């Protein structure tokens, strides 16, 4: 089972590394969205400092949602997905592997570049650390929840727009507590409560989302 998990992760990572442009597109989308806000609302540093955490988080939400289309669609088109569903290993584990690889490719780069963007918004070093920590806890939840949405909309007309409608409402709690953690650090309340809640989202999502996504895949492939 662990061999199967490792195999799926390595396969998806190799595939992603062969097509680096896709990975970089998501990352640049994230950077561009974050840089648009100062142009839109004006360059006053005090306003930006207040908005920074929320802006970075909303951009991370949108970026990770945009990359969901690639999670299953490639495998769906070339038929690999049907073989994964038929494989003797539990589908939940295989789906978890795919989600993990997806997060490594599209979630982790966002986490790594976020401090740089936070710096542009004038966040302090402490706040930057909290931002990174909240993203590390939060972006896996986004990938996990998103996988269910991606599996449900597999191969549908206008699936890209539909997946946003399904997934964004479910992303809202993560957004609230992710951005809230950084805000709490900035205002001096301490981010522990928010970070704990983000961790509390991660655990059930880790347990239930791969299973639900596997179920959704079976429905979609029937």
């Amino acid at each position, binding site marked *: 089972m662990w061999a199967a998990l490792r195999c799926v992760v390595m396969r998806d990572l190799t595939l992603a590394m062969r097509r680096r442009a896709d990975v970089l597109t998501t990352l640049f989308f994230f950077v561009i969205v974050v840089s648009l806000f100062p142009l839109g609302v004006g360059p006053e540093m005090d306003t930006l400092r207040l908005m920074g955490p929320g802006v970075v988080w909303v951009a991370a939400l949108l970026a990770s949602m945009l990359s969901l289309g690639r999670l299953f669609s490639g495998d769906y088109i070339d038929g690999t997905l049907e073989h994964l569903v038929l494989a003797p290993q539990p589908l939940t584990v295989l789906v978890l592997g795919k989600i993990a690889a997806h997060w490594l490719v599209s979630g982790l780069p966002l986490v790594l570049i976020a401090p740089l963007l936070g710096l542009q918004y004038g966040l302090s070093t402490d706040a930057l650390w909290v931002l990174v920590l909240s993203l590390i806890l939060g972006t896996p939840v986004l990938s996990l929840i998103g996988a*269910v949405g991606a599996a*449900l*909309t597999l191969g*549908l*007309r*206008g*699936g890209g727009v*539909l997946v946003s*409608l*399904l997934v*964004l*409402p*479910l992303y*809202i*709690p993560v957004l609230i507590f992710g951005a809230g953690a950084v805000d709490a650090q900035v205002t001096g309340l301490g981010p522990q409560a928010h970070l704990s809640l983000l961790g509390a989202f991660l655990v059930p999502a880790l347990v239930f989302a791969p299973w*639900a996504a596997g*179920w*959704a895949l079976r*429905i*979609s492939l*029937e």
Partner: protein
Amino acid sequence: MAVGQINWFKFSSPATFYPLAGKLIPYFTALAVVLTVVGLYLGFFVAPTDYKQGEGYRIIFIHVPAAWMSMLIYIVMAAYAGMGLVFNTRLSSLMASALAPTGALFTFLALWTGALWGKPMWGAWWVWDARLTSELILLFLYIGFMSLKAAIDDPRRAAPASGLLAIIGVINVPIIYKSVEWWNTLHQGATIKSSGTSMETTMLTAMLVMTFAMWMYTVAVVLTRVRCEILEAERDTEWVAAELSKSS
């Protein structure tokens, strides 16, 4: 099936449920009309004026029942969706999709009347408070459910896919319900608790009557809608052909 044994699943077949629903609709419609008239009369003419909020509070008789119904309908919808997934019964999935538009309507009504109530009391149409936001998410969930259902052409895939989504979304309902206790918000706390109420009796009666009125309205409307859905889903069967030739 043995003689004398009740067949619990008799009405889980669309063919037997269709005429039953047709017979029930007039009763529920009548109940809804009577209860609405009584509830609105009690609410607008009998119930006393609130000492703090004046006459403006009277929108509560629409607002609170609508908000309750929006949550209740979502739970019922998810329960039907769950039954559809587990037992693979066609009627359950049809009921779930028939409930969704009414649920969305009540969610919208709760938000709309809340805005009308908020303007004079809080001085703002909308505040980003936990309860309002989670009710808004509920509206998005209803819309997501309906659009996923609409986007999938094959009904055998559409029903379980949207059903799974409905079940995932059920997490939101307790959050709305408890949000006033969990977060410090502008929205007032629950007035009716298990330990008793801080409300005047006529106010409470009017509100409960309005809730039942909306409930009966929901049943009547959903049964009407599910009859249409049954006809559409079963359009290739003989009993539908017989039914349609009988009525035309």
